[in-house]
């Protein structure tokens, strides 16, 4: 039985060596503070990367022809686009969506050529669904629904081809039945700040692409959700509603390499947190082991008085619990302050990556903002208390194995 005298014993024991107790609390606090900060960073970076990949064209969810995940061919088209769009309109939590088709083609100007993936878009939807259109500066203008023979290309592509706004480009592309060609007028040159992205942008209207290529209708509907954490729920709802012959996939399936990279970063972060927790726990275990060795005679006396091993374990666990709680408060304050900084000021990744804040065709945000919320409280306390309690197990076990007669003889 653990009563109020046992509790007093445990708590007052922490004051026998205040310096050690304070150092232990600071150690736990710093450890859990770093863990909170790391979690804030991991959460913020993950959210930013998912937002970036989704807004760069992937969408959080995408409706594609059922064969597309296996074949990844630009010649495939949706079974029933009207029904698919109706399903998207009926889905709750949709921020925007883009309707697109793509074909592989070759742009030529004089003796200069460039191989590109030509995207047929619905212009009025694309501005909401793609940050490439949203955030870029455009020389000339972007497409409108009424445009015919019009194309918007990226700045890098324009430089490679030596074209300017109002120049004409010769386009050769893979048509439905045979290779097709057309002359397109450059109505806009788009500049995102990333040379990689600007080398890939080649947009025409969906109607124009259909006319030139002969492939009817769109090939994908990319959907942005208000909250990326609703991907699974959104997928489940949409999968029921899309026509047979079409399929719903998530951003992870559209861009598995980037998804793996995000998971890898998060996994590394969690590993780092795990290492921090282990180091903190070893420090506490060492301090508690010293406590047990110092109190060997006293614990032998308690055993002689009839205290059982379980009660000794509980007494030492209470001491560790108090250190854990105090360490949790310290960690919450330290880590919370760091996380607040991350959440409000953020980290300027332009300063790290330079102007090219992009990975391949994915435009990253120039700042990473950390995650911040009530989770910091339970996370700081959880890490601190669990680590200190786990760390007290071995010293407590040592304490229960003290032979009273031998300890009292010394």
């Amino acid at each position, binding site marked *: *039985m653990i009563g109020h*005298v*046992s509790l*007093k014993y445990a708590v007052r024991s922490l004051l*026998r060596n205040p310096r050690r107790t304070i150092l232990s609390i600071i150690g736990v606090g710093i450890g859990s503070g770093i863990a909170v900060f790391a979690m804030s960073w991991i959460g913020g970076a993950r959210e930013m990367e998912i937002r970036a990949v989704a807004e760069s064209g992937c969408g959080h969810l995408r409706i594609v022809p059922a064969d597309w995940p296996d074949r990844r061919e630009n010649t495939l088209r949706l079974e029933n686009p009207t029904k698919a769009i109706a399903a998207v309109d009926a889905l709750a939590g949709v921020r925007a969506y883009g309707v697109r088709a793509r074909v592989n083609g070759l742009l030529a100007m004089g003796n200069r050529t460039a191989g590109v993936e030509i995207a047929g878009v619905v212009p009025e939807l694309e501005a909401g669904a793609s940050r490439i259109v949203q955030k870029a500066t455009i020389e000339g203008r972007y497409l409108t629904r009424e445009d015919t023979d019009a194309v918007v290309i990226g700045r890098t592509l324009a430089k490679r081809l030596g074209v300017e706004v109002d120049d004409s480009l010769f386009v050769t592309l893979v048509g439905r039945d045979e290779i097709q060609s057309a002359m397109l007028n450059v109505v806009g040159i788009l500049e995102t700040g990333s040379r990689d992205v600007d080398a890939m942008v080649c947009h025409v209207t969906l109607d124009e692409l259909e006319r030139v290529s002969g492939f009817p209708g769109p090939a994908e509907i990319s959907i942005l959700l208000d909250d990326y954490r609703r991907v699974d729920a959104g997928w489940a709802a949409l999968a029921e509603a899309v026509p047979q012959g079409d399929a719903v996939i998530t951003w992870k399936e559209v861009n598995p390499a980037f998804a793996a990279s995000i998971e890898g970063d998060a996994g590394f972060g969690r590993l780092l947190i795990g290492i921090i927790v282990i180091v903190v726990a070893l420090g506490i275990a060492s301090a508690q082991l010293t406590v047990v060795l110092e109190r060997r*005679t*006293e614990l032998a006396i308690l055993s002689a008085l009839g*205290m059982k091993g379980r*009660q000794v374990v509980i007494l030492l666990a209470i001491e560790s619990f108090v250190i854990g709680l105090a360490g949790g408060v310290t960690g919450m304050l330290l880590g919370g302050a760091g996380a607040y900084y991350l959440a409000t000021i953020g980290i300027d990744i332009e300063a790290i990556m330079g102007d090219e804040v992009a990975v391949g065709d994915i435009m990253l945000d120039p700042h990473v903002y950390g995650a911040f919320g009530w989770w910091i409280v339970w996370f700081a306390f959880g890490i601190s208390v669990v680590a200190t309690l786990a760390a007290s197990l071995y010293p407590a076990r040592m304490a229960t194995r003290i*032979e009273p007669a031998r300890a009292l003889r010394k």
Partner: protein
Amino acid sequence: MTVRENEVLLRAHGLTKVYHAGKIDAQALRGVDLEVRSGEFLAIVGPSGSGKTTLLNLVGALDTATSGQLEVLGKEISKMSRRERADLRLHALGFVFQAYNLVPVLTAQENVEFVLELQGVGLERRARAGDVLNRLGLEEFATRRPNELSGGQQQRVAVARAVASKPKLVLADEPTANLDGENAESLLAMMRALNEHDGITFVFSTHDPRVIAHARRVVTLVDGRVARDEQKECCTVNGAAKA
């Protein structure tokens, strides 16, 4: 656990204890036969290394014998689990140590209460601990911690702690070794009173003549064996006659 008058509390037969220190074996007890009955006030004496403390540790279920039989309150110690031995110590035995060994972070009252709490005594433990301290004249020291008490006061609190749980047998290892004459005499008088009025059996390990003078039975150990077992003529068990 009730004890009838003149009941055998402990019975040792052929008790041996060998300590192993590396390749060296040290035989502390070489076949001790001893019987202690309820109400006794018994001193185990002998020179250093004669096995007094070892015998006390075995009787107190703090250690196990190498061979022989040892029954305490009718239970064979060697057959008891670690937990059962802890229960025996908690409910039937009390200990007084040479170095007092009070818990330094607890007050006198809390030291006494601690044992009652371990026993599972409910809220009345506070009053019970207070009563014991009052009876032993320690009420004014109840809120003091051990470092605020003299050696004699600490040892009296240790006795209070030992008897608060109403044990059948109190084992006291050199309880007066660190006390001056006055404090030792006062402590022994207190323990004698507990023996006579409450029927608590006391077994001392000592070579202090002051303790021997108070004892009604003196068992002398020499080289791990009982060399002499002397019942003083003035005394009988349960104090039927006093010195």
